[in-house]
């Protein structure tokens, strides 16, 4: 009975912490995720430019990324720690969001994806060192 109650207590505590806490309260996590989402958008644009994806896949996959990027942009807007990094990352997140939306709405052909690919590549190049330098230790 004691073991069972311990399990129930541990699960309850963890649920409380997870639900009540803000998992993305640290900037380095937000920046790491932003870098990954940017790289994912870039990979989709690159594969679209090389005609390796179906148009529906491009639209749907980019549309699935959009709310995730939007929530990271919002987290950056709220970020107070590491203010300089957050300031640098904010416009990049805005542009990333716009480009991914463009992929989702009308860039499912190779010719439309190429300019997006080039711009996304630049964003990823800027986010990689930013995310790395923000990591603790």
């Amino acid at each position, binding site marked *: *009975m004691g073991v069972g109650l311990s399990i129930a207590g541990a*699960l309850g505590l*963890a649920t409380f912490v997870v639900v009540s806490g803000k998992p993305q309260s*640290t900037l380095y996590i937000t920046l*790491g995720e932003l870098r990954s989402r940017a790289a994912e958008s870039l990979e989709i644009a690159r*594969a679209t430019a090389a005609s390796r994806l179906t148009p529906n896949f491009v639209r749907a*996959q980019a549309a699935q990324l959009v709310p995730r990027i939007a929530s990271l942009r919002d987290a950056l807007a709220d970020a107070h720690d590491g203010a300089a990094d957050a300031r640098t990352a904010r416009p990049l997140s805005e542009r990333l969001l716009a480009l991914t939306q463009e992929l989702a709405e009308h860039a499912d052909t190779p010719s439309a994806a190429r300019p997006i690919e080039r711009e996304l590549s630049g964003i990823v190049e800027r986010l990689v060192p930013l995310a790395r330098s923000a990591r603790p230790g």
Partner: protein
Amino acid sequence: MLELFLGILTAMGGFVEIGELTFAVNAGSKFGYGLLWVAGVGTVGIIVYGEMAGRVAAVRGQPVFNLIRERVGFDAGLVTLVAAVAVNVLTCAAEIGAIALVWQLFVDWPYRAWVAVAFGFLVLVVWVLPFQWIERVFGLGGLLLVVFLVIAVMEVPDLGEVGAAFVPRVPALESTQEYLLYAYYTVALLSSIMLPYEVYFYSSGAVEDRWKPSDVRRNRLIVVVGFVLGSLLCAALIIVGSQFFAPRHIEPQLPGVVATSAAAHFGVAGLLIAIAGMFFAFAGAAIETALSAAYGIAQFFGWPWGRFRPPREASRFTITWLAVFALATAVILTGVDPVSVVEYSIVFSVVILPLTYLPLLLVAGDRRVMGEYANGPIARVLGWLYMGIVTVAALAAIPLLILTHGGQG
């Protein structure tokens, strides 16, 4: 012979679900081959306990939750049951969400519409198809994920490094936070491979298939060969994470992103194969978790259960699995991210592993109950060794979840 062959392939194809896909690829992307040894350790663990569960079911006709109530008593058993059902509902919710995400990649309907369709589809499949067909259709369909094994080979990993990475070791990392994250991934990956629902489902399935003591040898072959082949898929996903995604700075969360690695190697055909494989794997896992929850509840309270009975004869069991699908669908319709749900369900799963596996270990080793089929020296030593491992993992899981901000860093 055909039965055995199909059983092995089904065990292999049913090995991967959304949690393992996410954790394995991310593990490779974050830590290279540094967590490959966990795939090896976890595979031996699920073989040890899967074999015991199948053997007890074949010899005694008793599935896991009968044993839990019998060995740990009603109160502790009830807490285990509640926790197991909660984890099963969460995992089922995540799989339903993942199915909807995957279907969206084929036809651009709204996500919530696909969630509703997935609910209807899963209920229909479980209602209409016989148990063996459910196992085989989704197990064999999940074999399409072998495309990731091919990609892992085509990415030309250093085989010496891959082999060495199966020896347990902690790599040199940059900070305390990274060591904590590594520990979190170790626990999560181990849990995703040794998920308790796999054992509930496997042992209940053995009873559904009316295994007898003469099936003990078949059970051993299916578990050993099927799970080893399944673990190759898990290892392949870690290698794909390390070789394909890490250099691109991607730590994928969405199944479609993982599928882009197949598109990079095989174009549209590879993409479609990967997505179809994911669908079968996720749908199979959704069905297994819903049925596992219903099996657990029915077995614990002594209700008639089993897909081999007409729904009218096992009405409470039938209502339970329908309710689990409905509850899981309701959870995912709230808009919660399926990837987050699966991460928490997997970490919570490890907490209940010791209480699931201990009764099984005690019964499988009891000569008065199992006679000549009781655990031999190898099963006994490995069983207690893994009991120690899962207990340590269970104690560490929640603190690590908190210290790593829900596994984010």
